[in-house]
């Protein structure tokens, strides 16, 4: 394997693989992705994989998410079917107080072109008859949906490889050295050199940052997800906390726990999650839960993506965020522009790591 590259991307999850793919569309040579395990063995493979815009706040973050969601149909045309479904998203609420909040949200979104409807109880039940009749209403956004994360990352990888990207897996990076004009990256399986270095380590970003003496303030959040037996299609929308997959299984998850990298599941959360699901969709009471799994999510300290150049270190970039599935098409596109053109078509200054300084 050649060891000198134009660009090394550390992390082959949905974010790293999207950057690799988008970069390879324009720059066919000299890209390698290093992954400590294998793409989809971490966060990207243990997610409900919503493409979700609605109720992201503040509105500029929702706008950013919307641009990414809008890229999905185009992305599917380029890399192949990723089972992207723009189902529309429903967030039911159970009190009048929440209705006021919802209306304020809808108002805030209007100027940026995200249409959120605040539905009455009857309207919501008409759209999704399985919802709990005790709801007071729901917010609805037509741009929300979901995707098959396994297909998504796999398609990114295949498309990237077709364009000449190399993947080096089970190859944990242990040391990064900055020399004039280049980086030397030492990993378990060898030594690599590159001009550009992109840190896309997701939940491991903080550890990666330490190798270049940069604090990347990403923490871990555990989410436990339940999977039901395959049920006949009965959910029309992506509902807050749950969605029905192509094969009929309903995926349910609400929990967020600070447990580091511990991927265990606990019955406490499993039971809570099941109860929440029944609260939203009472008929799920009869469904059998066949599986539960945990995913460790990346969570930046302030909740927003950390994206762009790392100030003070030439040609060093970072892309670390929660909601990597939603944002991956846009992040891949923008990081490519940043690396090749030095500027982006949509401003990303707001997401610079320098905000934490």
């Amino acid at each position, binding site marked *: 394997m050649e060891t000198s590259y134009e660009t090394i991307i550390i992390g082959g999850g949905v974010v790293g693989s999207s950057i690799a793919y988008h970069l390879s569309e324009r720059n066919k040579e000299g890209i390698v992705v290093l992954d400590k*395990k294998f793409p989809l063995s971490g966060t990207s493979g243990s997610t409900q994989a919503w493409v979700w815009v609605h109720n992201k706040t503040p509105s500029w973050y929702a706008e950013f998410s919307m641009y990414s969601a809008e890229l999905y149909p185009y992305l599917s045309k380029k890399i192949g079917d990723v089972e992207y479904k723009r189902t529309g998203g429903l967030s039911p609420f159970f009190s009048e107080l929440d209705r006021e909040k919802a209306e304020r949200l809808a108002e805030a979104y209007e100027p940026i072109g995200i249409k959120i409807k605040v539905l009455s109880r009857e309207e919501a039940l008409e759209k999704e008859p399985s919802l709990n009749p005790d709801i007071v209403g729901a917010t609805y956004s037509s741009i929300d949906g979901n995707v098959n994360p396994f297909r998504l990352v796999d398609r990114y990888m295949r498309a990237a490889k077709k364009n000449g990207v190399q993947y080096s897996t089970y190859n944990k990076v242990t040391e990064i050295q900055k020399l004039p004009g280049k980086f030397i990256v030492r990993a378990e399986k060898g030594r690599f050199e590159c001009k550009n270095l992109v840190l896309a380590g997701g939940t491991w970003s903080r550890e990666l940052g330490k190798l270049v003496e940069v604090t990347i303030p990403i923490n871990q959040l555990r989410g436990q997800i339940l999977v039901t037996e395959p049920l006949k299609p009965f959910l029309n929308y992506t509902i807050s906390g749950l969605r029905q997959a192509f094969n009929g299984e309903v995926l349910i998850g609400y929990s967020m726990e600070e447990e580091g990298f511990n991927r265990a599941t606990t*019955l*406490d959360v499993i039971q809570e999650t099941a109860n929440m699901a029944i609260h939203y969709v009472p008929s799920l009471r009869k469904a059998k839960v066949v599986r539960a799994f945990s995913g460790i999510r990346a969570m930046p300290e302030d909740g927003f993506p950390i994206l762009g150049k790392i100030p003070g270190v030439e040609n060093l970039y970072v892309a670390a965020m929660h909601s990597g599935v939603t944002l991956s098409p846009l992040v891949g596109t923008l990081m490519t522009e940043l690396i090749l053109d030095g500027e982006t078509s949509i401003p990303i200054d707001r997401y610079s790591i320098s905000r934490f300084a």
Partner: protein
Amino acid sequence: MNAVETDVLIIGAGPAGLAAAFETASRGLQVTLVDESKSMGGQLVQQTQVLSSLPSIYQPMCGFELAAHLSRQLEDFEIRYLLGHRVIGFYKDGSVGITDEKNVFPLRAKKTIVATGASENAIAFPKWTLPGVMTIGAAQTLMNRNFVQPGKNAVIVGSSDFAMDVALQLSKVGVRIRGIVEKNTGVKANGTEKVEQVRKIGIPILLNSSIKEARGIGAVSEVDIQQGEDIWTEKVDLVCVDGGRSPILDIFYQLGCSFGHQEELGGWVPQYNNDFQTDCENVFLAGNAAGISTQGALLVTGMLAGINVCAALGAISKEAVEEGKQSLWKELESIETRSNLKVWQARNQHIEKFAHPVLKDQFIS
């Protein structure tokens, strides 16, 4: 919900679990026994063949007789039986979640013995998912437990001792066995007598052969068997696949135990020490979950786990523990070196690696 308390929780009421229950309950410990089946004895219940290599204190007997014996010897003790119940997970505080398929309740045990046994491995070939294709153990269960003849014309894939036993039993209930298909150059079974018996009743044993494809609409109706260059078709309505067995590990995953790989023990096996204790201090294991072995060995591992749990809870004197352990290990050695030396060697290798597990958790990190 307040957790139910118990000294010892035994998960699995097969031979190992029942043996462990006897060791612990007979020394005055409060024992809870969980099994998803409504009956005790696990897979013993449908074993109508005579079990060889039982521990020296036992007369030769059939599996179902042994199951009855093991259950009967518990009658004098107050054991909390949770039959028809399943362990489905663990709470954050370490208590175990048990369901009766309707409700879930927590149970807190001082020590847990996991004796979840083994599951059969399938052998895949084109159309192997057609009804009529089943594991060899499933065919035996249908026949001996449910009294259903699983088919009329059968092919068996695999030639272990167990496959020979079931071949004989199937023949006895009128299933015509068209052949035993073995991909290797020799028969896998160690019991030469049984192989002779199988040959004698006219069942062809086909070495160097495999199933190329199954066919059928809605159910299997024929298979193509390949032996070297020859391919021919057999009309069958039953294909029994014997892909060996592997320990059932779900509970160990949930508990965060480490694993090592030992091909001869069935693949991935929880890491354990001389005391049949895993690297989770309060978790012991026994039976096929600790490595696939013969019925006699399973009993001994159950007894060992039971004695060691008694020691950990102070229910037995130090001398008695040492004496018991020594004689049981001797017994285990004698049974396993006689029935399958490779298993004995693999078990020892596995125990030696206790401090250096290959897998610290299920996520290969």
